[in-house]
């Protein structure tokens, strides 16, 4: 069976700095990937390249065996969803209107969102704990509420692969766990997959079964979490002493 998303000999650079070279990655259904690396190492750029929003210097990204740049954007959007680090809203709009744009890839040019789309939107808002805020103006939301709104938008897009740029950003501790439980649950139960960028080693260890480390200068390391998230790899990754301990059967990382 072909992998959900696969890269072959991918080379990505930004501002003359190499992020990865000859990079091969295969994300299978049911997998959760964590991407780690220092600030400015190119995590977001690589994520955008995997989503087909940016062209690589060399190599190819394949969605279920088909090269991304041969697929129409609409078709890609039905399979790959992206949670961005920043959301823009220069014009006024309500929470419900904002969530509904997640249905865009499924609607024909003249088609309006129907009752079914509205039902899904309400469901998604309820899943992120925002069902009471449907008529609120987006401009009045807090950072954490905006983040949950963006996640609800991603949920009704129903992508098989979710590419998440710091999903825990702005979320309080309870919502970090609740949202990641929700997303990881979808991956497990519905045969989706996710790849998330993060800086919290403990969240990565808790939710991801695979990890991808970006060391810079094109050097990468990917594999199963148990082999990749080790003290020596992480100390090299961040240039900072790190200790690993077990608390209630979970691996916990502490900065030294």
């Amino acid at each position, binding site marked *: 069976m072909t992998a959900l998303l696969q890269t072959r000999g991918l080379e990505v650079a930004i501002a003359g700095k190499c992020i990865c070279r000859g990079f091969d990655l295969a994300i299978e259904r049911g997998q959760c990937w964590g991407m780690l690396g220092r600030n400015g190492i190119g995590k977001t750029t690589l994520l955008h390249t995997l989503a087909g*929003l940016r062209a690589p210097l060399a190599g190819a990204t394949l969605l279920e065996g088909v090269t991304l740049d041969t697929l129409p954007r609409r078709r890609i959007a039905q399979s790959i969803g992206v949670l*961005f680090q920043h959301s823009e809203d*220069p014009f006024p709009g309500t929470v419900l*209107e904002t969530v509904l*744009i997640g249905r865009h890839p499924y609607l024909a040019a003249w088609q*309006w969102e129907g009752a079914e789309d509205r039902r899904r939107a309400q469901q998604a808002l309820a899943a992120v704990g925002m069902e009471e805020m449907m008529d609120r103006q987006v401009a009045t939301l807090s950072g954490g509420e905006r983040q949950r709104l963006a996640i609800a938008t991603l949920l009704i897009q129903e992508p098989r692969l979710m590419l998440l740029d710091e999903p825990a950003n702005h979320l309080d501790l309870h919502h970090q766990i609740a949202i990641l439980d929700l997303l990881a649950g979808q991956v497990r139960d519905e045969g989706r997959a996710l790849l998330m960028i993060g800086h919290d080693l403990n969240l990565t260890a808790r939710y991801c079964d695979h990890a991808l480390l970006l060391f810079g200068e094109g050097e990468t390391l990917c594999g199963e979490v148990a082999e990749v998230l080790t003290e020596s790899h992480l100390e090299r990754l961040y240039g900072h002493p790190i200790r690993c301990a077990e608390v209630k059967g979970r691996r916990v990382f502490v900065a030294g």
Partner: protein
Amino acid sequence: MRPSWWLLAGLLLLSVASLIFALAAGSVTIAWPELWAIVNGGEEGLGRSLVLELRLPRALAAFATGGMLALAGALMQVLLRNPLADPYILGISGGAAVGALLTMLLGAGGMWLTGSAFGGALLSMLLVFALAHGRGSWTATRLLLTGVVVAAGWGALISLILSLSPDAQLRGMLFWLMGDLSHADDPWPGLLVLALGLGLSLPLARNLNVLSRGELQAGALGVAVGPLRVRVYLIASLLTAVAVTTAGSVGFVGLIVPHLLRLVLGNDQRLLLPASALLGGSLLTLADTLARTVAAPQQLPVGVITALLGVPVFLYLLSRSHR
């Protein structure tokens, strides 16, 4: 039916009302029964030619111009993701003005004036497009900056032409710059381009809703952002070019009408685009009728009236919406 559809129906009624008002009002006021008879083909004589040959073409030209400006403004605001954008922000009116003023300076008029204004607008549109495209990415910021700088260049040329022009021509030039419909006697190009612009932009409306949330987000939701931007730029520019050619640079309609409607309707382009065309058309028809009647026999530049009407209404709505 949703409330927003009622609003669209209301705007349609307003459009018809503004056209009737434009036909009835003027140096000779034409009463209802007489107007009805003229429209139905009865009634001979002065009244008939006044309404059908003078007022009707001018009212329709005003409606088309206002509709084109408001639609172009709504499109530009989403394209540049900047609520302060108007149809002139990328220098199209400046190019048209330089063409028109040069023709006036040379003493030509009529077709020459129309042709050179349209030529100037097209030149400006292609210039901004080519410069903003250049090498590398075509971002909204780069397009905006290129347009603003090109517009400033046209502004300098306009000042130069005005300072070189003999006094006899200055008045006509200033009227053109402020927006003036007294020479607009052929409404058809405007009406056709307005219909074309609406027909081409309405199927893109939901794509534009997504684009207003950012280019990356739009791409991730399945919008082919590059081709969409080029199409919207071309549609908005063509609308502006024809509007400016018809009536000179009428200010405020393109900025204020989409804004007003956004305060009431929200930012759904599927409603906003047709509503902008209707309200912009009605507003300019009313403003032009006032421009030729309030100080009769003196005619005022219509751009002055749109600004005088638009500014207080807009400020009022803005202060109300912030509560």
